[in-house]
């Protein structure tokens, strides 16, 4: 899932400073399960903004609504009326959600309430870790299901490097060395021979280096209606 965290309240207050009527839009998917921008968090943020603005002497009318997915037109279209009434739309979706709202409602001023962090998973309740960098060319089949692109600080394809000490990456912060993890897993599965093959330099054109990415599936596209 996409993992995000809420911006500091002070920054959000700055983003909505000029508006009196604010609509907080939550998203019911990734940011709900990482407790950053779901129904509950939208309600809490709306309540905080109402109270903070009252204390500051310029009470704002802050309401909130949560849609199942901010990244699909069908759900976004359902809140056209609420968006139209707001002077500022504060999206608690990921960066995709913010842009989808702004794209669907070009007349609306849409600002982000979250910092979108990474694609990852909760390793325990309350802890999220990055697992995928969306490089567009998956090599997990060679590395025992452990991604060196997302989890190695240097994104090495033939690791580990000299900064790996006792299984920990030199960047510290308790970050495990991805290549130590890969080695340990391949050894446990008696597949160390996979490491004997030197991986050539990665073609990054499928990643961000190739510019914004797009996937088109002609078989899924809806045929244009023909009129007789």
């Amino acid at each position, binding site marked *: 899932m996409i993992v995000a965290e809420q911006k500091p309240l002070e920054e959000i207050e700055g983003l909505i400073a000029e508006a009196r009527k604010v609509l907080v839009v939550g998203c019911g998917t990734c940011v709900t399960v990482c407790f950053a921008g779901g129904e509950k968090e939208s309600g809490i943020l709306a309540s905080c903004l109402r*109270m*903070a603005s009252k*204390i500051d002497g310029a009470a704002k009318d802050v309401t909130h609504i949560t849609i199942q997915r901010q990244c699909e037109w069908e759900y976004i279209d359902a809140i056209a009326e609420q968006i139209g009434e707001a002077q500022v739309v504060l999206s608690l979706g990921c960066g995709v959600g913010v842009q989808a709202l702004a794209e669907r409602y070009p007349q609306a001023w849409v600002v982000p309430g979250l910092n979108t962090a990474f694609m990852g998973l909760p390793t325990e309740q309350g802890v999220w870790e990055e697992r995928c960098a969306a490089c567009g060319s998956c090599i997990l089949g060679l590395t025992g299901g452990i991604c060196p692109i997302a989890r190695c600080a240097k994104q090495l394809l033939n690791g580990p490097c000299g900064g790996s000490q006792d299984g920990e990456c030199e960047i510290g912060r308790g970050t495990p060395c991805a290549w130590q993890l890969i080695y340990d897993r391949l050894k446990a599965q008696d597949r160390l021979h996979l490491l004997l093959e030197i991986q050539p330099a990665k073609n990054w054109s499928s990643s961000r280096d190739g510019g914004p990415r797009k996937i088109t599936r002609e078989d899924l596209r809806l045929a244009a209606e023909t009129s007789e």
Partner: protein
Amino acid sequence: MSEGALQIVAFCCHYCAYAAADLAGVLRLHYPAEAKIVEIPCTGRLDMLEVLHAFEGGADGVMVAGCLEGDCHFRTGNLNARRRVERTQAVLASIGLEAGRIQMFNMSSAMGKRFAEAAQSMTEEIRALGPSPLRSAVDGRAEILSEQGVAENAQGPAT
């Protein structure tokens, strides 16, 4: 609303503090009338949104009273609640309210005196902080409703 009429919402665990408040009553122990008790099944049920709504609705303070640490009926509900209270304190500070307006207390169901003391100490601390700055806005709304002939806490038609 005068300063003497502070509103303190006390979220009390069914298994300890709520029973302790009951015991305080049975023992005829005095505790401040400012504390308004809300029974919850466990302090682990405490929801920050409800706490914020209490403040938004004009509460001057919120006390959360759960079981003694290690004695939670649901094992760790009171420990989770303590962390939520700490997070809520940080949120209150960020919006301009004093963090001390919400506090956590622990007691068993046999500690009626402890409940009375906790309610007393919370009330004194909130009195020292003064009424919530949000109260004037809430009171303003109450006055408007009053002028319109709407009772904010109407219990239905008088018989």
